[in-house]
């Protein structure tokens, strides 16, 4: 008992010493804001899985933070946790961040955002790569979240994407959509695609999957039934995109994607979100939160400028000619 008491005393002493050290030793790196101590911002980043788009968003976010004066190792402490696609691990990460009382949280993709919003109602959560924050019940409305959550949505400009498909594959009438039927994001996108398709003279042929193992077979089931394939921003299908492309190239069925990283992996083209830029935009919102703005009042933002990405090598593989005017308009052509 005595021993334990002395240990507590020792710890208290040690703690007060370190605190005093922090207080006095911070002289030479004062923040630019009038004389306030430079406080280290503790940022937690929660991500469901490694995935080119999600990783790009994370890099963009940190880049914007850096541009705003928050640099890792100086006044920013980044705790990045990736759940490797496992839902229960995701819950554990979210719980840990809430218990650690982080100053700020970046939640990448819907699952991570939902897990995180479940664990804390007061730490500001910045979301990115979430398609429909309202449907996921993360915010009350896009214009006025009313919760501790704000950030950016990656709701695809699906109408523009189908228009691009029509432009690249004029003969297309039936478009296959491969998606995971258990991802809310994908269901929303497929519903929109169905709505928009009619006006463009297209019919949507659904090929739903439940896991990466089913993707190849789902793609094979589309052969002979469609003239083009559209892959929405679906975590499962994007993870298995090589499987889709393999089958599609063999049968010369052009694959259009919902985002540029999938085009870099070998899909034909996309118009839409650039996840790096989207992450940057989220980072800029985070800076406003750190300056004292409340997430409750910050509207969810969409990406400001859409970019067209075309993969010339894929065009060759699919036997598609890219119109000259499109080439001129494209933000990026992958050779």
């Amino acid at each position, binding site marked *: 008992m005595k021993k334990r008491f002395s240990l507590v005393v020792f710890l208290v002493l040690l703690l007060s010493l370190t605190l005093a050290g922090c207080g006095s030793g911070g002289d030479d790196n004062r923040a630019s804001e009038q004389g306030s101590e430079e406080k280290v911002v503790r940022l937690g980043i929660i991500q469901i899985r490694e995935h080119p788009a999600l990783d790009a968003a994370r890099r963009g976010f940190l880049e914007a933070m850096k541009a705003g004066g928050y640099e890792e190792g100086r006044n920013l402490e980044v705790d990045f946790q990736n759940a490797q696609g496992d839902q229960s691990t995701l819950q554990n990460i979210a719980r840990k961040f809430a218990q650690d009382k982080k100053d700020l949280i970046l939640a990448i993709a819907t699952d991570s955002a939902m897990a995180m919003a479940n664990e804390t109602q007061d730490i500001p959560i910045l979301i990115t790569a979430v398609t429909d924050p309202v449907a996921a019940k993360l915010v009350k409305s896009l214009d006025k979240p009313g919760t501790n959550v704000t950030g950016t949505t990656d709701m695809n400009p699906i109408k523009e994407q189908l228009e691009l498909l029509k432009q690249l594959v004029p003969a297309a009438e039936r478009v296959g959509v491969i998606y995971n039927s258990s991802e809310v994001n994908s269901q929303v996108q497929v519903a929109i695609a169905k709505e928009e398709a009619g006006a463009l003279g297209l019919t949507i042929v659904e090929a739903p999957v439940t896991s*990466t193992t089913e993707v*190849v*077979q789902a793609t094979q089931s589309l052969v002979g039934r469609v003239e083009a394939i559209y892959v929405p921003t679906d975590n499962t299908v994007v993870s298995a995109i090589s499987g889709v492309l393999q089958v599609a190239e063999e049968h010369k069925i052009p694959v259009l994607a919902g985002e540029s990283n999938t085009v870099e992996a070998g899909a034909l083209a996309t118009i839409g979100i650039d996840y790096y830029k989207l992450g940057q935009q989220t980072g800029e919102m985070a800076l406003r939160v750190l300056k004292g703005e409340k997430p409750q009042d910050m509207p969810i933002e969409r990406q400001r400028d859409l970019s067209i990405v075309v993969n010339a090598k894929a065009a060759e593989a699919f036997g598609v000619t890219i119109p000259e005017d499109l080439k001129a308009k494209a933000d990026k052509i992958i050779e």
Partner: protein
Amino acid sequence: MSLSVWLGALEQGLLWGAMVLGVYITFRVLNYPDLTIDGTFTLGAAVAARMILAGYDPGVVLVMALLGGAAAGLVTGLLHTQLKVAPLLSGILTMIGLYSINLRIMGQANLSLLREDTIFTWAKGLTAVEPFGPALLGLLLILLVLVLLYLFLQTELGMALRATGDNEQMVKSLGTNTGTMKLVGLAIGNGLVAFSGALVGQYQGFADVGMGIGMIVAGLASIIIGEALVGTATLMRAMLAAVVGSIIYRAVISLVLQLGLPPTDLKLLTSLIVVVALALPLARERLGLRSQRLRSEQGARVEERYQDF
């Protein structure tokens, strides 16, 4: 239904056939409910993807995956024989551990093999009519596995292995170490499963850490479907049943996808197919299509066969 869909189902049925044979060895021959398989399948794909990206020959990679799977099977066996862990739990423990090991091997949750040289790049040149290459390769490999396995099960060691599954007490009383037999069986079974994983990974062009989920169910469903169609009268027939069942299982999935049913219903359909396949022999018997002697024998065998499910 286009040709390519059926061809795809045939290819996948053949490639997954080694996995089903692995399940056959552990569940049926050895009578050991081994759940390591979900992890071992991914292990095979992970080893294959990582090594191919590192520039190894796709054929060498298959052998390495097989050895890796066998090692995983040994771990399960040692847990059971040395630490007296129950069969079900021993498999579960190895499977969970493999998840982390697979992530370590791959370095990330997902590895793409697009435009890499795989064994199927080579297979495409096998036949004059290009699309049949992968199916032919799958057929050749599964025949090789079938023949080797058949020959092995005829040896003294193979016989002891089968006897261990049939009647462990008797084999023990004859002075054979049944622990060793279980190690051998689990190593072979899991080796085959990983071999299949390495093939499937190369076929679909990527390895994913969640690939193996549900493998046991698929394996058992394939075995039961095959047994209902091909029968189990002889060892060769029982082994063929595993491969035929694998092909039928994939064909049914293709059919469901073609019909445009949501895959959420696919799982229900899978269980229904298995129920129907289970009911077939009994139904035949009830309808009195067979002679009295066969019937009682068949009935006894069916009951004995399915009491562990």
